[in-house]
């Protein structure tokens, strides 16, 4: 029985057929080519071990991608739990001292320079895809690891909040706060990138 499955899978051709695709997928999410290469390799090896479980219900590529996706989520989770995180276990408030003033009567107002400077951070005219990708990658890299994990799962993988909470072991209100903090930083970072 597993013979028929192995006929459908063709491990000798994997690197040639799916190497670039999986590598691109990984690099858009981990932003480090060495790490992305490792993830692709781990994916293929894990797939090889699990090939008896391939039922042919999906294409080879979809199946491999789903394995890669698990691996990527694992790296987020590792990053997330290895950090004594002040973001995951946030201090009970949603507010972030880096961005808002703390003294009455201006408590909660934007700190000078931390709010938006203009209506738009995007440049006028045609949006340069390559530039946009580059800046987004750089800004994601600047996010604290737990925020990056939540942001990537939500905005790039478009996972629903239940899934993200389960994967990262957090509550929904934790997640909303993390996404808020990630957006604060992404917006600020992108605006600065385009101004400079």
């Amino acid at each position, binding site marked *: 029985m597993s013979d028929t499955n192995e006929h459908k899978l063709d*491990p*000798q051709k*994997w*690197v*040639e057929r799916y*190497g*670039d*695709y999986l*590598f*691109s*997928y990984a690099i*858009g999410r981990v932003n480090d*080519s060495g790490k*992305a*290469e490792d993830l*692709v*390799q781990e994916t*293929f*090896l894990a797939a*090889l*071990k699990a090939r008896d479980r391939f039922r042919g219900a999906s294409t080879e590529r979809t199946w491999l991608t789903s394995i890669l996706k698990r691996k990527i989520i694992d790296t987020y989770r590792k990053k997330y739990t290895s950090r004594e995180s002040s973001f995951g276990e946030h201090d009970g408030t*949603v*507010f*972030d001292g880096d*961005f*808002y003033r703390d003294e*009455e*009567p201006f*408590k*909660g*107002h*934007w700190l000078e320079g931390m*709010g*938006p*400077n*203009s*209506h*738009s*951070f*995007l440049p006028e005219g045609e*949006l340069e*895809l*390559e530039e*946009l*990708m580059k800046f*987004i990658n750089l800004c994601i890299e600047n996010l604290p690891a737990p925020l990056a994990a939540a942001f990537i799962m*939500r*905005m*790039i993988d*478009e996972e629903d*909040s239940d899934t993200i909470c389960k994967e990262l072991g957090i509550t929904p209100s934790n997640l*909303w*706060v993390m*996404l*808020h903090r990630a*957006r*604060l930083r992404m*917006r600020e970072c*992108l*605006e600065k990138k385009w101004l400079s």
Partner: protein
Amino acid sequence: MANGPVYRMMVFMSKRMIACDEASFLISLREDRKLDFRRWWQLKMHLLTCHLCRKYARQVGELEHSMEVYRDGCTHESCTHHLSHEAGSRIDKELSRELNAK
């Protein structure tokens, strides 16, 4: 100034209205879920009076849009990354070693 009418008015208002920290949180939250009426109204009122948060709201919209472009972008040839030759053959080698070990 510290006890003047402007100060007292701001303290009074700050008890009823939300400040930018909360408003920006709600701006983010409404991307992920529907706001209840009270929060929706509080945000609405805040945005009426705060030009910084209006800018912020617009930029968060742009961020959502940019991420959409980013997601779609990765299906185009232009942003395909290529696995380096060395990495490719290294992985190939690992794979065939595993295959032969079976």
